């Protein structure tokens, strides 16, 4: 007994009819409440602090993911934005004696501004050029701080003595308070991002990835949307930085180095680039991995690096992609329904959890927008080509293996892999 596609929207309600996935607010709240019990039950402070770190990383990865997911830019300067938030918050508490609760919003705003300043010039540039620009920006910031011998920022040794948010509590309870705070914030950000990515606002931006020339053919609308997405990403980054600085009572320039940035990239890619859950999954997975390999520093680097290479080569959709595929397959076995529905319905049902579509993910609605954008896309950057293999071999080899979002972002020739229906070239 299979459900017709028409039944699914009814289940998902209005959101389904509009093609929006339902934002899983309620389930998230439930999960948060459950997780919030952890520090009450668990005594081990070290583990709790590790969890806080993971949550902080989650905020960072989510902000980075937003930039690449919605603006298509691999922002290698993200940590500098985060650090600017941290330094702003830190400096206000250290130099002006401000309370951390007041300094934090300042850090948030600083992050937002820094993001806009850093990303805006890179809009016109393609792929690696945009990345190089953001990276160069970030390095200038980092190196200027290191070169700072006036003691204002603490120079290469970093800023110390930053006030914490919960300094009035005992260290143990302060730790737990941070846990709850970051937990709620991470969840809230996740819901926000989900909303953003699946609203018309988000879907309009999805196509931006393919638009290389910013000024040509883009309405004011899109420009505003682009800047908004960058701004929000920066605000989240600033928040993460500010929380980090107050949690660890300090921040150093090495925080912005290539190493930590690489870690961030690994987290997001492994977790699932451009997805909603990916950054969080990645943050947790990679941090756990790092902990397990804590004593063998060099092997850790090798392993992490190898992991990234493997993921890029074989599972570009990351863990989230694997999960999504498995879920979709599971549903496929349970119902007799197979593909052919519109992505909008598929996404709605994925949220509602009933009917099935191939490679259905919560982010699927974006696919249709991508395909529309693809039709007007400028010629993609072509890499070297295999001697004998051409379009035919590659296109037919992996039609369904990659799930929605990742392809949308990394893929400049998505049409070959996503649709078998389109014919003309």
């Amino acid at each position, binding site marked *: 007994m299979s459900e017709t596609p028409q039944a699914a929207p009814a289940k998902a309600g209005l959101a389904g009819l509009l093609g929006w996935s339902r934002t899983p607010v309620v389930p998230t709240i439930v999960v948060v409440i459950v997780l919030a019990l952890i520090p009450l039950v668990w005594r081990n402070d070290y583990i709790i602090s590790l969890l806080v770190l993971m949550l902080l990383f989650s905020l960072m990865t989510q902000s980075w993911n937003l930039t690449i997911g919605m603006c298509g830019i691999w922002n290698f300067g993200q940590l500098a934005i985060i650090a600017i938030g941290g330094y702003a918050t830190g400096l206000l508490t250290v130099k002006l004696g401000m309370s951390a609760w007041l300094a934090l919003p300042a850090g948030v705003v600083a992050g937002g501004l820094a993001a806009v300043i850093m990303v805006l010039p890179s809009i016109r540039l393609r792929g690696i050029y945009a990345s190089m620009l953001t990276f160069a920006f970030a390095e200038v910031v980092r190196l200027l701080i290191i070169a700072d011998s006036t003691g204002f920022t603490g120079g290469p040794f970093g800023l110390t003595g930053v006030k914490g948010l919960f300094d009035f509590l005992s260290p143990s309870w302060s730790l737990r308070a941070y846990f709850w705070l970051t937990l709620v914030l991470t969840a809230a950000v996740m819901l926000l991002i989900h909303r953003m990515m699946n609203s018309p606002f988000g879907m309009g931006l999805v196509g931006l990835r393919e638009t290389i020339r910013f000024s040509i053919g883009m309405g004011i609308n899109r420009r505003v949307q682009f800047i908004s997405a960058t701004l929000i990403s920066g605000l989240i980054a600033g928040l993460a930085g500010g929380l980090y600085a107050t949690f660890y009572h300090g921040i150093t320039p090495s925080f912005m180095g290539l190493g930590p940035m690489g870690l961030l990239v690994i987290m997001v890619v492994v977790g699932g680039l451009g997805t909603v859950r990916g950054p969080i999954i990645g943050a947790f997975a990679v941090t756990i991995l790092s902990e397990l390999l804590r004593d063998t520093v060099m092997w850790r680097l090798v392993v992490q690096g190898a992991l990234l290479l493997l993921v890029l080569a074989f599972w570009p959709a990351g863990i989230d992609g694997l999960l999504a595929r498995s879920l979709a397959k599971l549903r496929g076995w349970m119902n007799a329904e197979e593909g052919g529905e519109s992505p909008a319905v598929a996404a709605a049902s994925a949220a509602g959890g009933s009917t099935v579509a191939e490679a259905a993910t919560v982010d699927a609605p974006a696919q249709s927008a991508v395909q529309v954008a693809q039709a007007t896309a400028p010629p993609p950057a072509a890499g070297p080509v295999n*001697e*004998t293999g*051409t*379009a*035919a*071999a590659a*296109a*037919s080899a992996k039609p369904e293996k990659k799930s929605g979002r990742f392809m949308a972002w990394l893929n400049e020739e998505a049409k*070959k892999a996503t649709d*078998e229906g389109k*014919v*003309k*070239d």
Partner: protein
Amino acid sequence: MLDVSGLQAGYGAATVLEDVSISVDEGKLVVVTGPNGHGKTTLLRVLSGLLPVNSGEITFLGERLNGRSASSIVARGLVHIPQGDLLFVDLTVEQNLYMGAYLRDAWKGRRERMRRVYELFPRLEERRTQQARTLSGGERRMLGIGRGLMSNATLLMVDEPALGLAPVLVQEVYATLDKIARSEATVLLVEETLANAKDIADYVYLMDTGHIVHQGTMTEFGEDVLASTYLGNSGS
């Protein structure tokens, strides 16, 4: 010399060529004509190994070419001179020509080949050490063809030699192509405007939406066949 039968090929899932069969005899100049976008270039790309064969047979000098790599096809003497020249713009005329003789066997005799090419295209010799990007349209075309000749080719496939050239130059290029067909190598031409080639073509194939719809010697080709094909398919 070249036998193609029942060829079906395209780009990925999109099939462009449907059941194409042509054959080229040694020493002849064969033209494939037809409206643009109907598969002529695709045909050449399949023959030269840039695109895979979905079904059908390609036989060249008695050997089956299906699935062979581009470099092995060139090694066997089947050379594709692409549309738009695709010159190595920052290399000199001479360097471009040398590249034409890349394959080992051709490389050994490259100076001799180059002398022969200069005989056919004296203007290229004048511009020997100039960068390819500084050449005029006609000179570029000559360089492209000359480069193709450098490879000891037995069958030259030239894609739209008249493209973008003034009528005077078109005549010059075609005269040289005729000379080449008589002395150097067999020639297979793709030409959208049959009028350009009508004086030198030995045999003509008319391609329409990936099918060979008409074939014959130049005299057998009536005006009406051409007209109906072009008019009938305008705007498709």
